[in-house]
């Protein structure tokens, strides 16, 4: 397929610029939705945290702080590499764009790796509700609710992160086909917006999980 054919907008759009802008608006609107999704979960967490502050503080002590903090650094850096990739796209620096995208994918995978290690450590600590849970003294029953939140929130976040990685791989494929150029790099921006959201969710999850009871 010749490159210029990829720049014809779909039939409902007047120009390719409009198509790109509308795609980005679509992603922002979707993120409002996602905010409410994660927001409902975080709300539940706070309801139980304020009802059982002591139990949550005790339970939270078993969260692996170094994993969480390292992951925060990894994810924040990946947001930087993502923006650098988009910048490169805007300047038609194709090689740089690919490099930064690969860096973002790499950092995303690193996050997942550290998370996997953390899950392994969690199993060893016996903080897996239903499967293998041992309540620490002073926790009562509500401590298990902390860990329910932990596993649900981090798994959902990881699924979103994996989706982001998948989308980035798809971007690499489209770049290879010459469909992402400085004339039209909106798809990359859309993925970048999503990636930033995944990062932002983590910024909210981090204090909920790792900083409870540590003040």
């Amino acid at each position, binding site marked *: 397929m010749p*490159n*210029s054919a990829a*720049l*014809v*907008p*779909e*039939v*409902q*759009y*007047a*120009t*390719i*610029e*409009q198509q790109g*802008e*509308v795609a980005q*608006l*679509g992603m922002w*609107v*979707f993120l*409002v*939705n*996602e*905010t*409410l*999704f*994660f*927001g*409902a*979960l975080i*709300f*539940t967490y706070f*309801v*139980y945290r304020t*009802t*059982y502050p002591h*139990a949550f503080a005790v339970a939270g002590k078993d969260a692996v702080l170094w994993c969480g903090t390292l992951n925060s650094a990894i994810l924040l850096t990946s947001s930087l590499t993502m923006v650098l990739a988009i910048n490169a796209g805007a300047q038609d620096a194709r090689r740089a764009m690919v490099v930064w995208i690969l860096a973002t994918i790499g950092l995303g995978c690193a996050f997942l790796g550290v998370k996997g290690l953390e899950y392994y450590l969690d199993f060893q600590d016996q903080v897996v*509700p*239903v499967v293998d849970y041992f309540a620490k003294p002073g926790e*009562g*029953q*509500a401590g*298990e*609710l902390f860990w*329910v939140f932990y596993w*649900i929130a981090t798994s959902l976040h990881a699924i979103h992160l994996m989706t982001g990685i998948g989308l980035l791989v798809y971007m690499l494929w489209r770049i290879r086909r010459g469909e992402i*150029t400085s*004339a*039209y790099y909106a798809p990359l921006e859309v993925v970048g917006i999503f990636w930033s959201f995944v990062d932002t969710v983590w910024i909210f999850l981090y204090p909920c999980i790792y900083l409870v009871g540590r003040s």
Partner: protein
Amino acid sequence: MTVTTVDRDALPNPMDEPSFLTSENTIASWLFTRDHKRIALLFFASITFFFFVGGLAATLMRLNLATPKGLLQPAVYNRMFTMHGIIMVWFFLIPSIPATFGNFFVPLMIGARDLAFPRVNLASWYVFNLSGLMVLYALIMGGADTGWTFYTPLSTIYANGYVLAAALAVFVNGFSSIMTSLNFVVTIHRLRAPGMTWMRLPLFVWGIYAVSVVMLLATPVLTMDTFLLGFSRFTGIGLFDPRHGGDPLLWQHMFWFYSHPAVYIMILPGMGVVSEIIPCFARRPIFGYTGMTMALMSIAILSFFVWAHHMFVAGISIYSGVVFSLMTFFVAVPSAIKVFNWTVSLHKGKITFDAPMLYALGFVLLFTLGGLSGLMLATLAIDVDVHGTYFVVAHFHYIMVGATVSAFFGALHYWWPKMTGRMYPEMWARFAAILTYVGFNLTFFPQFILGYLGMPRRSYTYPEVWQTWNVLSSAGASILAVAYTLPLVYLGWSLFWGKKAPINPWRATGLEWIAASPPPKHNFPRTPIVTQAPYRYDPEADTFVSQEGTPYAE
């Protein structure tokens, strides 16, 4: 590298173009279509199927309730009312108008060639069907028996039915809603034809916009709710179980935070439809267009602040109750404004009584009665008495069935000529409309009385002294069943033998009426330029001006 802009005017002339219905005839061309009109018809098939499944459940319920002794085993009855609620709410009412008429007509009414994200639109239909298969699985395997509200700890610990399957079906269904509403919001913001300003949008488009905003903000909470519910049921975790530190009221708050806006999701599009039909068949502009748009948006926003009016007797603090009652009265005000505006939109018009108009007028009356009973429920001390009784059942059926289903049928008849290119038989349609109205009132008005007498809802039996009212209600239901099946017959007939429809049979002003009946694949030969406000009907001079500025004599 240059960017090409396609010359929209260079598309083939629609008078030569085949209609969207016949342009491609393979099954694949339907199942992999990106055309919003075809997707609308695909949704139409799906929701009609579920309407009859939910209706079958209702029929069995009303047959059972004709006598205290009943017909069904208690467990079967309990599963019937649960599945009736789940299927009617999520698999019929919520998608009904938006996914069918919204999909078909929003692009046409704003002068666009399609929605912003056609593939997302198609994906929405597939996800809907996936969730439909899941709910059918739950139903066929025996059904859930918790009520559509899934109150805990009954649903997480004590219920014996297929709760997890039903909850997961609802979970998946949410994604379909989200995709559809996202498409509408972005489309209405960005794909309006030149000259189509916000305050020139037809009220149906405003209605779809309002409902899409609510869906986008409310549905993700439901997604998380059903996920947590399913998780609790599957693992036994005490998220909502008091024996493990959980709070049963937390489930109720989270559930109603979505489900109250959900009921507005079910009525807002119907309000939009009625605002299209009344000006057309009264041949005059709607009374108070700006007020109507503001009413739609205020209802959408205020709907998020009233959820705990479902919980006045649930154990919330009495001061919370007071606050939510006040907010509920606030949200009732814009609805009242709409009723007044619709009624006065008949003043000095030139009114005809075609089937769409009969359905629209029926909507206004049934919505008013349902809304007045809603005021009673908003009044705290009265709700203490009638909560959990048939009074509430009557209230919500007046709105969801009396109003929304009437609007759905009104839209169906109004837009039938445009969608199919055929006219339906008018006399049969009027008969069905009137029969619906009679059957509906006979079914549900006695339920107000039953509720005040104290009959609890979700009961497979009742004390004999209440039998007369139940019999009346069941008799009405049988009439209603006929009235809802009739359109299937004569509309189906019209597809093959109905008169061919002209381009604008109702002489209406919207942009959808300048496209052919049925429209070609890309809707318009050239993008219309809009110069007029909607509803520029003049009953005095017997003329009207379409939104792109062409004046017509009647």
